């Protein structure tokens, strides 16, 4: 029995070596996402998006004249920096990946960038890390993200309020990194435009009663209450309390608060309230959904389009640089992502590769209307919404 096992193991080894030999030209890209942990419900769809882009490139004959792209998944856990670092280390040293699509959550992404990507000269493109801190992190030009920084949403909010002529607001935020980060970046942006934040107070999620919080916000006053919370949590509780006590009637609703649940819960009571969430009217989003049909994942999941774009950007940059080495192609990513050039939408990666071979410029638009700014992060596209007759309506895209 033991001999049989040994024999089969040996033959398997030979077979895999032979297989590897037949694919002599292959490049691996690590897909480092939290397949376990708080984001585990959306990460399979993000990985699906990234792997769809790779399959598309392979179907078109690969990059660099026949180099096939393979995805290797690693688990970032979203919350455990040590585990994410170990996973990234494994991907690079034992799997030999040329680039990393990931990580997903801001904390582990920063850790992997500093501990693994920079020492090894590996390019990372994160589809979903939104922490403003990553904009200024030391990255040797290796780190990019197809998701906008939360600081960007703060600026967009200040712009929206400015256009509506609102000068004074009270802010309440859910007491975690998201809420606090958004509230802080908004306050900074709003005060820079001359606005006044009368009070920025946290609320805890999952309480039955927010009368006390609303009382403090009402005492501080303001034309509008900015609710940087969650729709199924304290955010709605605060709105309920504010409406019941007559403290506020108009609310500004950032991305965590925009959803149909709000229509069901408040309807016409919050007519005139407004807000914004990431969204685009570009054709790319629709063609991505078409492309992903029957591929076993849900393309409308948050950050799934961004993951497709992250993978596509890296492969196109490799093609443009003529190399799969991070140090060679890192400088090409910004060129690929931004104008000038012919616009590239999902499903047109083969065309993009052909154009690059001809030496022509391309402007990768992709599924999430990618436009990289600053240190290589998405400018972010937001859909401004307003409540009319108890329904969420689109004001415009910005």
């Amino acid at each position, binding site marked *: 029995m033991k001999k049989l096992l040994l024999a089969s193991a040996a033959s398997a080894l030979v077979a895999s070596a032979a297989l590897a030999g037949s694919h002599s030209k292959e490049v691996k890209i690590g897909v480092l996402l939290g397949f376990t942990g708080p984001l585990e419900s959306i990460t399979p769809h993000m990985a699906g998006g990234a792997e769809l882009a790779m399959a598309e490139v392979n179907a078109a004959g690969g990059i660099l004249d026949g180099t096939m792209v393979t995805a290797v998944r690693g688990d970032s856990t979203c919350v455990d920096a040590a585990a994410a670092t170990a996973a990234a280390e494994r991907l690079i040293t034992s799997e030999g990946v040329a680039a990393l699509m990931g990580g997903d959550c801001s904390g582990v992404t920063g850790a992997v960038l500093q501990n693994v990507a920079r020492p090894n000269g590996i390019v990372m493109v994160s589809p979903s890390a939104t922490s403003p801190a990553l904009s200024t992190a030391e990255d040797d030009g290796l780190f990019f993200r197809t998701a906008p920084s939360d600081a960007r949403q703060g600026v967009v909010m200040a712009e929206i309020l400015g256009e509506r002529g609102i000068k004074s607001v009270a802010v309440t935020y859910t007491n975690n990194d998201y809420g606090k980060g958004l509230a802080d970046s908004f306050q900074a942006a709003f005060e820079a435009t001359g606005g006044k934040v009368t*009070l920025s107070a946290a609320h805890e999620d*999952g309480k*039955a009663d927010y009368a006390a919080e609303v*009382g*403090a916000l*009402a005492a*501080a006053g303001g034309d509008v209450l900015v609710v940087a919370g969650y729709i199924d949590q304290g955010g709605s509780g605060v709105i309920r309390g504010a409406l019941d*006590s*007559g403290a506020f009637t108009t609310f500004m609703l950032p991305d965590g608060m925009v959803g149909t649940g709000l229509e069901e819960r408040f309807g016409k009571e919050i007519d005139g309230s407004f807000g914004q969430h990431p969204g685009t009217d570009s054709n790319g989003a629709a063609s991505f959904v078409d492309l992903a049909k029957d591929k076993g994942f849900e393309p409308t999941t948050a950050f799934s389009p961004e993951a497709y774009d992250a993978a596509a950007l890296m492969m196109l940059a490799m093609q443009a640089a003529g190399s799969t080495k991070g140090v060679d192609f890192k400088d090409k990513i910004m060129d690929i992502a931004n104008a000038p050039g012919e616009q590239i939408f999902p499903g047109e990666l083969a065309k993009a590769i052909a154009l690059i071979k001809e030496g022509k410029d391309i402007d990768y638009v992709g599924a999430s209307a990618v436009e990289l700014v600053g240190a290589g992060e998405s400018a972010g596209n937001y859909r401004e919404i307003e409540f009319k007759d108890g329904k969420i309506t689109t004001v415009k895209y910005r």
Partner: protein
Amino acid sequence: MDLLNALVALSNFVLVPGLAYGSQLALGALGVTLVYGILRFSNFAHGDTMAFGTMTVILITWWFQSLGIHLGPLPTALLALPFGIAITGAVMLGTDRVVYRFYRRKKSDPVILVMVSLGVMFIMNGIVRFIIGPEDQNFADGERFLISARTFREMTGLPEALAIRTSTAITLVTAILVVAALFWFLNRTRTGKSMRAFSDNEDLALLSGINPERVVMVTWLIVAALTTIAGTLYGLDKSFKPFTYFQLLLPFFAAAIVGGLGNPVGAIAGGFVIAFSEVTITYAWKKVATYALPESMAPDSLMQLLSTDYKFAVSFGILLIVLLFKPTGLFQGKSV
């Protein structure tokens, strides 16, 4: 200076919410105090019994709603309340039969009973989450407001508004009725008197022929009624979530101990003391002060003593102070 507006703002954000919250606490603390006085242990399962009672009321309310039974402007839950009390009462008697009676017969120390009640708490906790789930449940229907903020502004022309929700008014009225009924029962009926006798001196009560099992049974039934009513009122006024009900245990005990454990009057007073200190200490007084003081003295700061995050710290602080300086509570109760 605008005293009228100051008064309206004060009522809207302090007096009315404080009264409602105080009544809910008082009803809950009454249950804690009755168990302590008669069964002689601190019932940690109280919050989760409340969740259980409210859950039964919610389920029956939903059933009524699906049958199309409504109470007009009043919430349907009021109609479901008696059924909820009956079911909760049966469950309490069952728990007593299966769990507490064993330890009572053995004359176990109170601390053992406390631990036993902790076990009951976890089981109740699990049952409630198993049946209705850990999420928020909203079961209020009928008219939301007695006076809404908008109507008040239109009626009076004041910039400040006073909103009174139907649930707040129902809470107050029900609490007064329940407390009146309870005191009438304890002071005027034979069973009530035997309960007080049992609480004052168990041996004497037994000598004069009072049936202890009967006293215990009546106590559990009253506690079931009190918790179910308190839980339903809290759920109508705020919202139902099992974890919140579990957390209410702290203010309940704080209220009962501040008032004097085992003393029903104390429980009610304690409930309002805790409620109003939580509300007033975490309230930002800027608005009221701006109206009440002359313009030159109007404050710039929020005038908030403690951030609202520390709400539970207030009841905990009061609990500690009372235990340190007056262990028997404001109204002579039993020392803890």
